[in-house]
């Protein structure tokens, strides 16, 4: 059966496209909880911290809002990595959202890895509104990891023999 190519990871803009020719720059999507990590990311800005521009933050009200289908979509549409960030367990603005998220995403992450996804491509972190440094470090770390992995190709089967 012929494999229909889904849109592969294309660099987001002409600027990154230019660099992509020389070195791979990943596109990373970060779902961030409004109450904690999003504030933490704002604080990183206030403190003029510096981190790679590869990460795009998508604001959600709570990590419990993150549907695993969003993650699959992001990977299918061309993100090379997805990060979900929420409040530390016990600190959820909505009492229990991150507890549900923790269960869901633990199971989901294992399922993705079971089907062969590299663990680095989908990660979950708890980052509070005061942990600007942790946000920066996480972005740097995840960026480095995914840069090392190379682009994610959702529509192409890897050429590994099953018998090999």
């Amino acid at each position, binding site marked *: *059966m012929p*494999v*229909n*190519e*889904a849109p592969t990871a294309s660099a987001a803009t002409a600027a990154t496209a230019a660099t992509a020719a020389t070195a791979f720059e990943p596109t990373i999507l970060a779902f961030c909880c409004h109450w904690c990590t999003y504030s933490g990311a704002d604080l990183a800005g206030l403190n003029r911290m510096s981190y790679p521009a590869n990460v795009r933050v998508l604001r959600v009200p709570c990590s419990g809002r993150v549907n*695993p*289908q969003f993650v*699959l*979509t992001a990977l*299918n*549409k061309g993100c090379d990595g997805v990060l979900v960030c929420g409040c530390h*367990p*016990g600190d959820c603005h909505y009492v*229990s959202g991150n*507890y*549900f998220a*923790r*269960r*869901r*995403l*633990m*199971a*989901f992450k*294992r*399922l*993705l*890895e*079971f*089907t*062969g*996804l*590299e663990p680095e491509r989908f*990660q*979950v*972190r*708890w980052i509070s509104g005061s942990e600007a440094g942790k946000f920066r470090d996480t972005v740097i770390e995840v960026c480095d990891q995914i840069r090392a992995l190379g682009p994610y190709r*959702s*529509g*192409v*089967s*890897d050429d*590994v*023999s*099953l018998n090999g």
Partner: protein
Amino acid sequence: MSLSTAEALTDALREEARRLLAEGTVAVVVGWEAGRFPNQTTPAFISDPEQAQRLVYGDYCVNTLAKYALGEKAAGKVAVCVRGCDSRGINRMIADNQLLRDEVYLLGLPCSGMKDPATGSLLMKCRTCTEHDAVTYDVLLGPATAAGHDGASADSSAGDSEHVSDEQRFTAVLGIEEMAPEKRRALFDAAFNKCIRCYACRKSCPCCTCRECFVDQLRAGWQGKQNNLAENRFYNITRVFHIGDRCIECGECERACPMGLPLMALNRKMVKDLKSLFNADDAGMTEENSAALGRYDLGDLEEFM
């Protein structure tokens, strides 16, 4: 089971079905009847007491009937033949508010595992079955333990009379987990590439009771309709995520799949993880909804930091 056991059970089933229909206790009986080919059976829907003798029970009643009860309930109370898998499916649908216990009348049948009509060997789904006998029923036809725990051991054809350990139940999962990631990717890419998106898996699944499946909804970005690797992976993984914490492990999806996708390995991966991580109960053992992703514990394992 032996021929005489099967005949005795068939007789008992027909008599019970006839009585239930004649007395008006139920409007329809869901069971199996002989198909067109040798050893083949198909689900049967009997509403006329005179037709009750069409029902059969034996080694080749491969369909799990739970889901069929749902389609029939509009007609009135539905009698359903249940073994372990069928009864857990019924429980699951009750837990999901899709069915009331009062809407069904459960005819418990012993089961020693069903065989593939083509090869005569035990069905894959029955080899890893942990619950042969009905976990709930209104009437039990035949001895409860014919399949189960001691009665059937005399019957050499029952290959699974032994208790299935978690190790056996999760053999396929454990095997894949041990593979290198690239190999796993290759294995599932090959499988997802084969998927023709016929949705037989969802049709047969007692947990798939949405009014309109997410793949059929018109929602921007939700799920592409293309038949390609990326979209097929999206479909299959989402399907597992939707049913994984409720899967009763009847194996119907995998049996129904015309392309031979390892769907139960995917389902069981989640079942196994939820069990080991969150001490999840086996689904469908009771009418209670205890889906592991619908609750949480403050003391849940913390690995995200």
